């Protein structure tokens, strides 16, 4: 595959691995957080940590859309599907997120809820057109990557006068989550989570650009290297981060220049700004309530806001007490530190959200790396 195989080349990887090994300083330990689930998945799937020196440790971040969705939000969607007679459309992994009463959207579907997996917002618009007598709700989750398509869908629904379509908006913002981690006592006060730098998001950055990360580099003195989701991108980013740390720099560098500019995608940003506004606060799984960290639909498009149309109120629901997803999402614990990992909590029966998506830290470690814990 042109433009893909080049970024998975095993020989180049060996060369890069040697370059990294050559520049790590013997007495230093390096701890980098890859913010995105896409990076977490690439690291696990390609066995990338086998190519890194022991002194470089990767900490998994919260950038996995289904991982950070709190139970209360999934409960809202399940309620719509089971009790309000709507056709509930959403992206694949969302179906398996564990919610209250041992339910998930997948289980709600088996109980008669009309839940449909879609590949794009366009699919859900089509379902609304095909079922004019039914209410169709798009359960919109994800970071800045998935937000513009939702904005387009809402505008298109308005242009077509589609009366039976609405969006349960749970879109969240990357910079707010990074700030929250950097401000956490484990990082800032106690230093129990050493963080020497970040691998910045790939797809999110194509939309928001590299500029939003400049604040973190300046304010918190943490280097950020934006990287693509291919394994060589990640290796190159780690090399660049090690270099910055060695040289005492804290800058935003862009490894993913083939797709990311400083300004990002202005057209997409404008669309999002046209349709959405900031929520004063939003609950994240793992990070708890984070101020100005999510989007809601503007008054102008209120008729497409599921929360308003159905008069929904958000109820916070606590996670399973033994589940360590919260600490894992903040980089405080590793999947294998959780008592439930691999025993009660498996990809077939996830207790916490990190075990759901292949981008989740627990699922990635379970599916690709757990043999290392046993050998």
């Amino acid at each position: 595959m042109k433009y893909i195989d080049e970024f998975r080349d095993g020989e180049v990887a060996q060369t890069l691995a040697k370059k990294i090994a050559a520049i790590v300083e013997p007495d230093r330990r390096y701890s980098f957080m890859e913010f995105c689930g896409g990076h977490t998945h690439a690291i696990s799937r390609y066995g990338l940590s086998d190519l890194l020196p022991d002194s470089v440790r990767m900490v998994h971040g919260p950038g996995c859309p289904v991982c950070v969705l709190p139970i209360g939000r999934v409960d809202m969607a399940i309620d719509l599907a089971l009790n309000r007679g709507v056709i509930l459309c959403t992206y694949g992994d969302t179906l398996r997120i564990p919610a209250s009463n041992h339910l998930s959207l997948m289980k709600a579907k088996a109980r008669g809820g009309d839940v449909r997996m879609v590949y794009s917002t366009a699919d859900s618009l089509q379902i609304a057109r095909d079922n004019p007598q039914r209410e169709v709700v798009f359960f919109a989750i994800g970071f800045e990557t998935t937000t513009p398509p939702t904005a387009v869908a809402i505008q298109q629904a308005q242009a077509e006068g589609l009366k039976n379509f609405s969006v349960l908006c749970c879109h969240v913002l990357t910079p707010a989550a990074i700030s929250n981690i950097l401000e956490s006592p484990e990082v800032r006060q106690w230093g129990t989570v050493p963080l020497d730098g970040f691998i910045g998001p790939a797809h999110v950055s194509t939309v928001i650009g590299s500029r939003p990360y400049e604040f973190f580099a300046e304010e918190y003195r943490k280097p950020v290297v934006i990287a693509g989701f291919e394994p060589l991108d990640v290796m190159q980013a780690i090399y660049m981060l090690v270099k910055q740390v060695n040289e005492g720099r804290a800058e935003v560098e862009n490894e993913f220049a083939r797709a990311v500019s400083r300004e990002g995608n202005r057209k997409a940003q404008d669309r999002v700004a046209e349709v959405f506004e900031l929520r004063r606060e939003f609950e994240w799984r793992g990070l708890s309530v984070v101020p100005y960290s999510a989007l809601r639909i503007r008054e102008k498009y209120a008729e497409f806001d599921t929360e308003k149309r159905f008069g929904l109120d958000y109820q916070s629901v606590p996670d399973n007490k033994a589940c360590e997803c919260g600490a894992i999402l903040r980089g405080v614990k590793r999947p294998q530190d959780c008592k439930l990992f691999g025993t009660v909590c498996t990809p077939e029966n996830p207790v916490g959200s990190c075990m759901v998506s292949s981008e989740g830290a627990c699922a990635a470690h379970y599916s690709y790396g757990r043999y290392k814990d046993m050998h």
Partner: protein
Amino acid sequence: MSGEVKRGYVRPLDLKNGRVDLTHGSGGRAMVQLISELFAKHLGNEYLGQGNDGAVLPAPTFGQRLVMATDSHVVSPLFFAGGDIGCLSVHGTVNDVAVMGATPLYLAAGFILEEGFPLADLARIVESMAKAAKDAGVPIVTGDTKVVERGKGDGIFITTTGVGVLPEGRDIGGARARAGDAILVSGSMGDHGVAIMSQRENLTFEAPIESDTAALHGLIAEMLATGADIRVLRDPTRGGLAATLNEIAGQSGVGMVLKEKDIPIKPVVNAACEFLGLDPLYVANEGKLICICAAEDAERLLAVMRAHPLGRDAARIGEVIADDHHFIQLVTAFGGKRIVDWLAGDQLPRIC
């Protein structure tokens, strides 16, 4: 006045515009007509022609054992590049019998039809089954048809059951893999599932992706004729290579190490998987087999496989190791290591 009763004129089945209705399954004339004008016409053979509730078949010779397998088919769409539910339902069951090391002899077929299903589609499917059965040399000797109300089925479901004979002394099964054995595959992985999925999603590629659906007993017979010590044969259908190897590892109580760069995957299948977010190791095949054999027999078997049209791209992809945890490890082309786990959830529903 003549005492003769006139024979009622029976209008032939309208195979162009006609549709299945509830009378086609109700035991009356309409059902008899469907059977005679469609099923018997295409599938006809001496056993089916007996016209009884069951087929009377010759018994195997002394020392032989019977192998029996069954498989239900619910694939959507019914017609796909490289095949359809008809030939798939023949190949699937023939392969299940053949990978036991048995010679498949007979098939039974059960049809569940949905009211309103076009007779033209049914005819196309039955013709395809007939051709597949004839090519395989395995006749469909008995069958059944039921019709369910509109909305209670999805067009057509087909269940086939196969019977074959296993010669004395032959022992092939999932529990026989031993540390040191070689793992072979007969060709590229993931073709069937990706063909179905790209059709469902209306994806087109420069090179069309076709299902690999095929009956493997001919290839298997040639492999067996080498006298090699074949421990395990299995066709990696749902869940693909990953699920099948995990199954075998569990049955045999062993682990495995695979080399990613040795696993044959067509570039176009890889590209489609990339696009659809699938892992080709978990995607279904319908005309491929996995063979685990004694390491010293591996190259000899590979040569025989590659000489057969269904095994041209056969490859040695790894080896069996001792591992109490039964992990399937993969040395990635990138140079790292990981496990290839059971599939969690459902990557692709209604694939076969």
